[in-house]
Protein backbone atom coordinates (compact mmCIF):
# COMPACT_ATOMS: atom_id res chain seq x y z
CA UNK A 1 0.00 0.00 0.00
CA UNK A 2 2.95 2.26 0.50
CA UNK A 3 5.20 1.25 -2.37
CA UNK A 4 6.61 3.80 -4.77
CA UNK A 5 4.33 2.58 -7.55
CA UNK A 6 1.14 3.07 -5.56
CA UNK A 7 2.18 6.50 -4.36
CA UNK A 8 3.19 7.67 -7.83
CA UNK A 9 -0.11 6.37 -9.23
CA UNK A 10 -2.18 8.12 -6.56
CA UNK A 11 -0.26 11.37 -7.02
CA UNK A 12 -0.64 11.34 -10.79
CA UNK A 13 -4.37 10.58 -10.65
CA UNK A 14 -4.93 13.36 -8.13
CA UNK A 15 -2.90 15.85 -10.17
CA UNK A 16 -4.80 15.05 -13.36
CA UNK A 17 -8.17 15.29 -11.61
CA UNK A 18 -7.30 18.69 -10.14
CA UNK A 19 -6.08 19.91 -13.55
CA UNK A 20 -9.29 18.80 -15.26
CA UNK A 21 -11.33 20.49 -12.53
CA UNK A 22 -9.42 23.75 -12.93
CA UNK A 23 -9.97 23.73 -16.71
CA UNK A 24 -13.70 23.22 -16.15
CA UNK A 25 -13.84 26.08 -13.63
CA UNK A 26 -11.90 28.39 -15.95
CA UNK A 27 -14.34 27.68 -18.74
CA UNK A 28 -17.33 28.13 -16.43
CA UNK A 29 -16.08 31.51 -15.27
CA UNK A 30 -16.51 32.79 -18.82
CA UNK A 31 -20.28 32.71 -18.30
CA UNK A 32 -20.07 35.58 -15.85
CA UNK A 33 -18.44 38.14 -18.13
CA UNK A 34 -20.59 41.05 -19.29
CA UNK A 35 -20.22 41.46 -23.03
CA UNK A 36 -21.14 44.64 -24.88
CA UNK A 37 -19.42 44.70 -28.24
CA UNK A 38 -20.29 47.28 -30.87
CA UNK A 39 -19.54 47.73 -34.55
CA UNK A 40 -20.31 49.78 -37.61
CA UNK A 41 -19.66 49.01 -41.25
CA UNK A 42 -19.85 51.42 -44.14
CA UNK A 43 -19.52 50.61 -47.80
CA UNK A 44 -17.29 53.31 -49.21
CA UNK A 45 -17.23 52.22 -52.80
CA UNK A 46 -18.31 49.52 -55.20
CA UNK A 47 -15.06 48.97 -57.08
CA UNK A 48 -16.46 46.76 -59.81
CA UNK A 49 -19.39 44.49 -60.42
CA UNK A 50 -19.32 42.00 -63.25
CA UNK A 51 -20.18 38.56 -64.44
CA UNK A 52 -17.41 35.96 -64.35
CA UNK A 53 -16.54 33.96 -67.47
CA UNK A 54 -17.97 30.85 -65.72
CA UNK A 55 -21.25 32.62 -65.21
CA UNK A 56 -21.33 33.74 -61.57
CA UNK A 57 -21.71 37.34 -60.44
CA UNK A 58 -18.78 38.90 -58.64
CA UNK A 59 -18.51 42.24 -56.88
CA UNK A 60 -15.61 44.03 -55.24
CA UNK A 61 -16.29 46.48 -52.40
CA UNK A 62 -14.27 48.83 -50.24
CA UNK A 63 -15.44 48.62 -46.64
CA UNK A 64 -14.89 50.86 -43.66
CA UNK A 65 -15.13 48.77 -40.48
CA UNK A 66 -15.19 50.25 -36.96
CA UNK A 67 -15.55 47.93 -34.00
CA UNK A 68 -15.02 47.74 -30.28
CA UNK A 69 -14.71 44.14 -29.13
CA UNK A 70 -12.75 44.79 -25.95
CA UNK A 71 -15.50 43.59 -23.62
CA UNK A 72 -15.30 40.08 -25.08
CA UNK A 73 -11.86 39.42 -23.61
CA UNK A 74 -11.68 37.58 -20.28
CA UNK A 75 -8.68 36.13 -18.50
CA UNK A 76 -9.46 32.80 -20.19
CA UNK A 77 -9.41 34.20 -23.72
CA UNK A 78 -6.67 33.23 -26.12
CA UNK A 79 -7.87 35.14 -29.16
CA UNK A 80 -10.99 36.52 -30.79
CA UNK A 81 -11.57 35.68 -34.45
CA UNK A 82 -13.69 38.36 -36.11
CA UNK A 83 -15.09 38.28 -39.62
CA UNK A 84 -17.57 40.20 -41.75
CA UNK A 85 -20.01 38.24 -43.89
CA UNK A 86 -22.52 39.40 -46.47
CA UNK A 87 -25.86 37.62 -46.09
CA UNK A 88 -28.60 37.62 -48.68
CA UNK A 89 -31.46 35.59 -50.06
CA UNK A 90 -31.99 34.50 -53.64
CA UNK A 91 -34.81 32.73 -55.43
CA UNK A 92 -33.04 29.41 -55.34
CA UNK A 93 -31.18 29.71 -52.06
CA UNK A 94 -32.86 30.60 -48.79
CA UNK A 95 -29.61 31.78 -47.27
CA UNK A 96 -26.25 32.75 -48.68
CA UNK A 97 -23.36 33.80 -46.50
CA UNK A 98 -20.12 34.99 -48.03
CA UNK A 99 -17.22 35.94 -45.81
CA UNK A 100 -15.60 39.17 -46.99
CA UNK A 101 -12.91 39.85 -44.42
CA UNK A 102 -11.54 38.29 -41.28
CA UNK A 103 -8.93 39.04 -38.65
CA UNK A 104 -7.41 37.41 -35.61
CA UNK A 105 -7.35 39.65 -32.53
CA UNK A 106 -4.82 38.27 -30.08
CA UNK A 107 -5.11 40.85 -27.31
CA UNK A 108 -7.57 43.22 -25.71
CA UNK A 109 -5.59 46.27 -26.81
CA UNK A 110 -6.08 45.40 -30.48
CA UNK A 111 -9.81 44.82 -30.13
CA UNK A 112 -10.84 48.41 -30.69
CA UNK A 113 -10.10 49.14 -34.31
CA UNK A 114 -10.91 51.10 -37.44
CA UNK A 115 -9.95 49.62 -40.79
CA UNK A 116 -10.57 50.49 -44.40
CA UNK A 117 -9.95 47.70 -46.91
CA UNK A 118 -11.35 46.07 -49.97
CA UNK A 119 -12.80 42.61 -49.46
CA UNK A 120 -10.20 39.97 -48.64
CA UNK A 121 -12.22 37.12 -50.13
CA UNK A 122 -14.09 37.34 -53.43
CA UNK A 123 -17.78 38.09 -53.14
CA UNK A 124 -19.09 35.59 -55.68
CA UNK A 125 -22.65 34.43 -55.99
CA UNK A 126 -23.82 31.04 -57.24
CA UNK A 127 -25.61 32.44 -60.23
CA UNK A 128 -26.59 35.88 -61.49
CA UNK A 129 -28.63 37.10 -58.58
CA UNK A 130 -26.68 40.06 -57.28
CA UNK A 131 -28.04 42.93 -59.36
CA UNK A 132 -30.13 45.21 -57.19
CA UNK A 133 -29.81 42.81 -54.29
CA UNK A 134 -30.46 43.93 -50.69
CA UNK A 135 -28.08 42.35 -48.26
CA UNK A 136 -26.99 42.42 -44.61
CA UNK A 137 -23.46 42.82 -43.40
CA UNK A 138 -22.87 40.82 -40.25
CA UNK A 139 -19.89 41.12 -37.97
CA UNK A 140 -19.34 37.70 -36.39
CA UNK A 141 -16.90 36.99 -33.60
CA UNK A 142 -15.63 33.74 -32.20
CA UNK A 143 -14.01 33.80 -28.77
CA UNK A 144 -11.43 31.03 -28.51
CA UNK A 145 -10.54 30.29 -24.89
CA UNK A 146 -7.29 29.14 -23.37
CA UNK A 147 -9.25 26.08 -22.31
CA UNK A 148 -12.86 24.95 -22.53
CA UNK A 149 -16.00 26.08 -24.26
CA UNK A 150 -15.93 28.35 -27.32
CA UNK A 151 -18.40 31.17 -27.76
CA UNK A 152 -19.63 32.78 -30.96
CA UNK A 153 -22.10 35.58 -31.67
CA UNK A 154 -22.78 38.34 -34.18
CA UNK A 155 -24.15 41.82 -34.89
CA UNK A 156 -26.39 42.13 -37.94
CA UNK A 157 -26.39 45.39 -39.88
CA UNK A 158 -28.94 45.64 -42.62
CA UNK A 159 -29.81 48.12 -45.29
CA UNK A 160 -27.09 47.63 -47.87
CA UNK A 161 -27.88 47.32 -51.55
CA UNK A 162 -25.94 46.42 -54.65
CA UNK A 163 -26.37 48.48 -57.83
CA UNK A 164 -28.92 47.43 -60.41
CA UNK A 165 -26.49 47.06 -63.29
CA UNK A 166 -23.00 45.76 -63.85
CA UNK A 167 -20.12 48.24 -63.79
Amino acid at each position, binding site marked *: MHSFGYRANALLTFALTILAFM*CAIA*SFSDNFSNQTPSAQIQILNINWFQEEPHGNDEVSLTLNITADLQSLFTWNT*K*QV*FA*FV*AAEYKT*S*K*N*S*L*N*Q*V*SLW*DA*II*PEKEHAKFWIQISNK*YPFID*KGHNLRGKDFNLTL*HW*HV*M*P*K*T*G*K*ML*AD*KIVMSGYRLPDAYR
Partner: protein
Amino acid sequence: MGYIGETIDSIKSIQIRQLLTQAISLGMIVTSALIIWKALMCVTGSESPVVVVLSGSMEPGFKRGDILFLHMSKDPIRAGEIVVFNVDGRDIPIVHRVIKVHERDNTGEVDVLTKGDNNYGDDRLLYAEGQQWLHRHHIMGRAVGFLPYVGWVTIIMTEKPIIKYILIGALGLLVITSKD
Protein backbone atom coordinates in the same frame (compact mmCIF):
# COMPACT_ATOMS: atom_id res chain seq x y z
CA MET B 1 19.31 -11.07 -9.40
CA GLY B 2 17.00 -11.63 -6.42
CA TYR B 3 14.32 -9.55 -8.14
CA ILE B 4 14.42 -11.74 -11.26
CA GLY B 5 14.15 -14.84 -9.06
CA GLU B 6 11.15 -13.37 -7.30
CA THR B 7 9.50 -12.50 -10.63
CA ILE B 8 9.98 -16.02 -11.98
CA ASP B 9 8.60 -17.45 -8.74
CA SER B 10 5.56 -15.23 -8.93
CA ILE B 11 4.92 -16.25 -12.56
CA LYS B 12 5.21 -19.92 -11.61
CA SER B 13 2.88 -19.54 -8.64
CA ILE B 14 -0.02 -18.09 -10.62
CA GLN B 15 -3.05 -20.32 -10.36
CA ILE B 16 -5.56 -20.70 -13.10
CA ARG B 17 -8.34 -19.04 -11.13
CA GLN B 18 -6.26 -15.98 -10.33
CA LEU B 19 -5.18 -15.73 -13.97
CA LEU B 20 -8.77 -15.89 -15.17
CA THR B 21 -9.84 -13.23 -12.68
CA GLN B 22 -7.10 -10.94 -13.90
CA ALA B 23 -8.01 -11.58 -17.53
CA ILE B 24 -11.64 -10.77 -16.80
CA SER B 25 -10.80 -7.54 -14.96
CA LEU B 26 -8.65 -6.48 -17.87
CA GLY B 27 -11.49 -7.29 -20.23
CA MET B 28 -13.87 -5.25 -18.07
CA ILE B 29 -11.58 -2.22 -18.20
CA VAL B 30 -11.27 -2.38 -21.99
CA THR B 31 -15.00 -2.92 -22.41
CA SER B 32 -15.97 -0.01 -20.16
CA ALA B 33 -13.61 2.26 -22.10
CA LEU B 34 -15.36 1.15 -25.29
CA ILE B 35 -18.79 1.74 -23.73
CA ILE B 36 -17.81 5.27 -22.70
CA TRP B 37 -16.53 5.98 -26.21
CA LYS B 38 -19.70 4.70 -27.89
CA ALA B 39 -21.90 6.61 -25.41
CA LEU B 40 -19.98 9.80 -26.26
CA MET B 41 -20.60 9.11 -29.95
CA CYS B 42 -24.33 8.85 -29.21
CA VAL B 43 -24.51 11.96 -27.04
CA THR B 44 -22.60 14.22 -29.40
CA GLY B 45 -24.14 12.76 -32.55
CA SER B 46 -20.78 12.61 -34.24
CA GLU B 47 -18.75 9.66 -35.46
CA SER B 48 -15.72 10.81 -33.61
CA PRO B 49 -16.51 13.02 -30.64
CA VAL B 50 -12.91 13.97 -29.93
CA VAL B 51 -10.25 14.81 -32.52
CA VAL B 52 -6.62 15.80 -32.25
CA VAL B 53 -5.39 18.81 -34.21
CA LEU B 54 -2.65 17.57 -36.52
CA SER B 55 -1.57 20.59 -38.53
CA GLY B 56 -0.83 24.24 -37.92
CA SER B 57 -3.47 25.55 -40.29
CA MET B 58 -5.64 27.01 -37.53
CA GLU B 59 -2.91 28.71 -35.53
CA PRO B 60 -2.72 30.61 -33.27
CA GLY B 61 -6.14 29.39 -32.14
CA PHE B 62 -5.53 25.64 -32.34
CA LYS B 63 -2.00 24.36 -32.24
CA ARG B 64 -0.80 20.90 -33.17
CA GLY B 65 -1.50 18.61 -30.25
CA ASP B 66 -4.68 20.26 -28.97
CA ILE B 67 -7.83 18.20 -28.74
CA LEU B 68 -11.25 19.38 -29.88
CA PHE B 69 -14.64 18.28 -28.60
CA LEU B 70 -17.16 17.89 -31.38
CA HIS B 71 -20.92 18.04 -31.48
CA MET B 72 -23.17 17.44 -34.45
CA SER B 73 -26.75 18.62 -34.41
CA LYS B 74 -29.38 19.01 -37.08
CA ASP B 75 -28.94 22.80 -36.93
CA PRO B 76 -27.97 24.30 -40.26
CA ILE B 77 -24.32 24.97 -40.94
CA ARG B 78 -23.49 28.67 -40.74
CA ALA B 79 -20.48 30.78 -41.62
CA GLY B 80 -17.88 31.06 -38.88
CA GLU B 81 -18.41 27.63 -37.39
CA ILE B 82 -15.38 25.44 -37.04
CA VAL B 83 -16.20 22.13 -38.65
CA VAL B 84 -14.41 18.83 -38.97
CA PHE B 85 -14.79 17.16 -42.32
CA ASN B 86 -13.52 14.23 -44.34
CA VAL B 87 -12.66 14.60 -47.98
CA ASP B 88 -13.85 11.70 -50.17
CA GLY B 89 -11.12 9.16 -50.43
CA ARG B 90 -9.02 10.47 -47.55
CA ASP B 91 -9.53 9.42 -43.96
CA ILE B 92 -7.67 12.13 -42.10
CA PRO B 93 -10.24 14.61 -40.75
CA ILE B 94 -9.56 18.29 -41.36
CA VAL B 95 -10.56 21.02 -38.92
CA HIS B 96 -11.23 24.37 -40.60
CA ARG B 97 -13.67 27.27 -40.48
CA VAL B 98 -16.66 27.75 -42.77
CA ILE B 99 -16.35 30.93 -44.83
CA LYS B 100 -19.11 30.55 -47.43
CA VAL B 101 -22.57 29.01 -47.18
CA HIS B 102 -25.20 28.64 -49.91
CA GLU B 103 -28.28 26.91 -48.58
CA ARG B 104 -30.98 25.76 -50.96
CA ASP B 105 -34.54 26.72 -50.23
CA ASN B 106 -36.65 23.60 -50.29
CA THR B 107 -34.33 20.71 -49.77
CA GLY B 108 -32.12 22.22 -47.08
CA GLU B 109 -29.06 21.00 -48.94
CA VAL B 110 -26.10 23.24 -48.45
CA ASP B 111 -22.87 24.11 -50.28
CA VAL B 112 -20.07 25.01 -47.93
CA LEU B 113 -16.56 26.38 -48.47
CA THR B 114 -13.96 26.19 -45.72
CA LYS B 115 -10.56 27.74 -45.00
CA GLY B 116 -7.96 27.34 -42.32
CA ASP B 117 -7.40 30.55 -40.32
CA ASN B 118 -3.66 30.40 -40.88
CA ASN B 119 -3.83 29.44 -44.57
CA TYR B 120 -3.65 31.96 -47.34
CA GLY B 121 -6.24 30.42 -49.68
CA ASP B 122 -9.43 28.48 -49.22
CA ASP B 123 -9.67 24.70 -49.09
CA ARG B 124 -10.57 24.00 -52.72
CA LEU B 125 -7.07 22.58 -53.17
CA LEU B 126 -7.79 20.03 -50.46
CA TYR B 127 -11.11 18.89 -51.80
CA ALA B 128 -11.41 15.96 -54.20
CA GLU B 129 -10.76 16.40 -57.91
CA GLY B 130 -13.37 18.72 -59.43
CA GLN B 131 -15.12 19.31 -56.12
CA GLN B 132 -15.87 22.97 -55.40
CA TRP B 133 -18.07 22.71 -52.32
CA LEU B 134 -18.55 20.55 -49.28
CA HIS B 135 -21.95 19.07 -48.49
CA ARG B 136 -23.58 18.10 -45.24
CA HIS B 137 -22.56 14.47 -45.43
CA HIS B 138 -18.88 15.39 -45.50
CA ILE B 139 -19.09 17.15 -42.16
CA MET B 140 -18.54 15.10 -39.03
CA GLY B 141 -19.14 17.69 -36.38
CA ARG B 142 -18.73 21.22 -35.11
CA ALA B 143 -15.99 22.08 -32.62
CA VAL B 144 -17.54 23.31 -29.37
CA GLY B 145 -14.69 23.12 -26.88
CA PHE B 146 -11.03 22.41 -26.65
CA LEU B 147 -8.19 21.39 -24.36
CA PRO B 148 -4.60 22.36 -25.09
CA TYR B 149 -1.62 19.93 -25.28
CA VAL B 150 -3.56 16.76 -24.32
CA GLY B 151 -3.43 15.37 -27.85
CA TRP B 152 0.36 15.05 -27.93
CA VAL B 153 0.02 11.56 -26.41
CA THR B 154 -1.92 10.40 -29.47
CA ILE B 155 0.42 12.14 -31.90
CA ILE B 156 3.52 10.56 -30.36
CA MET B 157 1.92 7.12 -30.36
CA THR B 158 0.90 7.46 -34.00
CA GLU B 159 4.14 8.83 -35.34
CA LYS B 160 6.51 6.65 -33.33
CA PRO B 161 4.65 3.33 -33.01
CA ILE B 162 7.58 1.84 -31.10
CA ILE B 163 6.45 3.83 -28.07
CA LYS B 164 2.98 2.27 -28.34
CA TYR B 165 4.50 -1.23 -28.30
CA ILE B 166 6.75 -0.39 -25.36
CA LEU B 167 3.78 0.94 -23.38
CA ILE B 168 1.58 -2.07 -24.11
CA GLY B 169 4.44 -4.43 -23.33
CA ALA B 170 5.10 -2.71 -20.00
CA LEU B 171 1.39 -2.75 -19.10
CA GLY B 172 1.16 -6.44 -19.94
CA LEU B 173 4.18 -7.19 -17.77
CA LEU B 174 2.70 -5.22 -14.90
CA VAL B 175 -0.56 -7.15 -15.13
CA ILE B 176 1.17 -10.51 -15.08
CA THR B 177 3.53 -9.80 -12.23
CA SER B 178 1.28 -7.83 -9.91
CA LYS B 179 -0.08 -9.69 -6.95
CA ASP B 180 -3.63 -8.43 -7.13
